[in-house]
């Protein structure tokens, strides 16, 4: 089994895609880079909102993410996974999640990225509280 690079950040700072893309490390055997940006929508369960307040149980969230990374490493030949999740107030149209998976082929890169996000929504202790629009 190969060594999978991992980068995890749960942060109150804005997600800077430009910096993340510039930090990408890719070996010559890799043919697929999949990345996903999750953005706060203007509606939540039918209500207009201005932002979402994210709360994490940070230590457990990091531990659970690493368990998911361990599982990814067993399932797919992934060279690198990087994930950034916001906490605190995130306004509408602003990214709350950035995930990147690098693998030899697109099939495994897409599958692993989708699986990671699905599992995150099942086990990683992060919650959101919508902030309703005041006007």
């Amino acid at each position, binding site marked *: 089994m190969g060594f999978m690079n991992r980068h995890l950040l749960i942060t109150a700072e804005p997600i800077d895609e430009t910096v993340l893309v510039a930090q990408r490390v890719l070996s010559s055997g890799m043919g697929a880079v999949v990345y996903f940006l999750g953005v706060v929508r203007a509606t939540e369960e039918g209500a207009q909102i201005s932002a979402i307040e994210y709360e*994490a149980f940070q230590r*457990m969230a990091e531990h659970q993410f690493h368990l998911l990374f361990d599982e990814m490493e067993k399932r797919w030949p992934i060279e690198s996974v990087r994930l950034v*999740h916001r906490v605190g107030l995130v306004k509408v149209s602003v990214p*709350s*999640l950035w995930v990147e998976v690098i693998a030899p082929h697109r099939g495994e890169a897409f599958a692993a990225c989708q699986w990671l996000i699905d599992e995150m929504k099942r*086990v990683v*202790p992060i*919650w959101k*509280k919508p902030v309703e629009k005041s006007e």
Partner: protein
Amino acid sequence: MTKSERNPNVARRTGREPAVSVSVCFYSYFKELSGCERATVTLSRGSTLGELFRKLIEQFPKLGAMQKSTLMAVGLDYEDRNYILQDGDEVSLFPPVQGG
């Protein structure tokens, strides 16, 4: 050595077994339901996470409505309701997670 010292089951019946004390942290809207962020609960030795939850519902009745959807962790790992609590365990209670 007395019979009770040799046999832990006998010792338990004497009622002299030390209790276990656990801390409980609430996350997300469970803080509103309980009205606090953390609590300390003392239970008899051998108590399970399920028994702790029933005790918490007596103390914080609004948690009762969330019985089926409550997630529970000890330390940083999920545990089921049959988990036997150890003295000093850090228990966390929270609603379904919603990252992303």
